[in-house]
């Protein structure tokens, strides 16, 4: 592949990935409102378009036309930079997520992924860890007590849960022997006992999946760990002082992070794009991508389901859960996985 085709293909892939991601962000808000509505015996959005399907569009237009207030007491450079950091970091990690096998297009071998690097997982972790600054700085620069408390809670919570999140991934890495997301998915191919898929969720990493699930909920500040933006005590937490597009950026960052976390869960524990293949060649080419999207959708649904079901933790419970339960559990899982892999080798 020469340089011109390479750049052309990369630009096309980036545009498609961004378009899909932003649409997915908009429609996961719709999905959340709809599902939570039905859980609470309401209808959810239904006025704008059929089944309320145009609601995200209407919301977007509303965000654009709202007055962009900047309170006089904020520290301006960081107040403006914070939402940008949050949304940039949230959108960057999608570049490393593979959605399917490498496809052959008239002799061009194109991996379905913007860029394939051999330390993909580490880069995603690095990008997410920088994303914390968006929330922390928003809380600090707003110069208001609710925002500051929200920002403090968010940074403490994200640092605590990042440890168990990272440790829960190590077990998967030991099983696959690589940081490359593509290699991790390839290691989950096939079946054991003849019919159960060889996904990490069913095969050795059940505990790790549980730890990952809990930590991921906390990392993305979602119920039952949404203390940084607990409405009943902190108004809206770190984004209390934000309005219009700046608020929308935090909103987008939160949902984009949810999607990234769901994609990672799919790749690491649910076998990525692996699924039954059948039918004509064209269908065979499309099916892996379809399986991937279905698994991500299932994980997103789980997110929303939990939000509709569980109440919020108390703050000391949240920290105790991270340090006294999840952290030892993750280490135990790591030791056991390491022993098993070492004994088998």
């Amino acid at each position: 592949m020469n340089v011109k085709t390479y750049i052309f293909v990369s630009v096309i892939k980036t545009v498609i990935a961004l378009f899909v991601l932003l649409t997915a962000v908009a429609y996961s808000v719709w999905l959340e409102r709809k599902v939570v509505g039905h859980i609470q015996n309401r209808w959810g959005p239904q006025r704008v378009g059929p089944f309320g399907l145009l609601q995200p569009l209407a919301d977007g237009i509303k965000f654009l036309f709202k007055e962009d207030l900047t309170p006089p007491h904020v520290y301006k450079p960081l107040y403006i930079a914070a939402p940008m950091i949050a949304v940039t970091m949230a959108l960057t990690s999608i570049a490393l997520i593979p959605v399917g096998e490498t496809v052959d297009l008239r002799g061009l071998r194109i991996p379905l992924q913007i860029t394939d690097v051999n330390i993909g997982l580490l880069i995603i972790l690095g990008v997410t860890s920088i994303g914390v600054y968006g929330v922390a700085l928003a809380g600090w620069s707003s110069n208001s007590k609710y925002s500051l408390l929200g920002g403090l809670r968010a940074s403490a919570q994200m640092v605590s849960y990042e440890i168990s999140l990272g440790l829960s991934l190590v077990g998967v890495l030991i099983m696959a022997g690589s940081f490359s997301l593509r290699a991790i998915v390839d290691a989950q191919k096939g079946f054991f006992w003849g019919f159960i898929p060889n996904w990490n969720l069913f095969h050795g990493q059940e505990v790790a999946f549980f730890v990952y699930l809990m930590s991921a909920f906390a990392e993305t500040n979602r119920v039952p760990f949404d203390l940084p933006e607990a409405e009943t005590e902190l108004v809206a937490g770190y984004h209390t002082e934000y309005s219009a597009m700046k608020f929308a950026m935090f909103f987008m960052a939160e949902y984009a992070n949810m999607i990234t976390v769901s994609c990672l869960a799919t790749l690491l524990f649910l076998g990525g794009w692996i699924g039954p293949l059948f039918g004509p060649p064209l269908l065979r080419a499309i099916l892996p991508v379809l399986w991937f999207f279905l698994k991500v959708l299932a994980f997103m649904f789980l997110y929303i389901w939990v939000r509709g079901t569980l109440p919020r933790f108390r703050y000391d419970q949240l920290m105790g859960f991270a340090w006294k339960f999840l952290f030892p559990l993750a280490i135990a899982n790591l030791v056991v996985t390491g022993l098993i892999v070492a004994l088998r080798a």
Partner: protein
Amino acid sequence: MLHLALFLMFGAICIAGAINLLVQSHPINSALSLIAVMASLAVEYLLLGAEFVAAVQVIIYAGAIMVLFVFVIMLLNAGVEERTRGSRVAILFGIPGVLVGSVLIAWLLLRHSGTTAVGIGALPGSPQTIGWLLFHDFLLPFEVTSVLVLIAIMGAVVLASRPESIEERRQG
């Protein structure tokens, strides 16, 4: 060529960030410029081929340690620091001393390290190589370091816990 240009550019960002860290009077701006230094250092590692070190640099330093810095600054709500004009001794001896020292170190490194300039992307920095070195060739230093870190953590816990609670436990 592109690599070299990027290397020089991020080197410049790194130095500018370090100077900005000293010049800024508000702690949070200093912390943010330290993050910029860490991030550009990570890019330098990446350009030299040490991709694992680069990723770890971002995750540990820029992502975890600096978040704690920012957290503490936010928690204490540290204000703008007071400026003195600086002592005359520092200006007379400090600046020439730093210049002479850095020139000396650079000269010694170039002269006696026995290596020519490292080619871009020439360092063996893959995770496998680093893991092998850490857990085979340098296992003892690695374990000793971990014990050292453990002692530091225990010391921090002892220092941070209030003396009254220890007294109570002794009596009760």
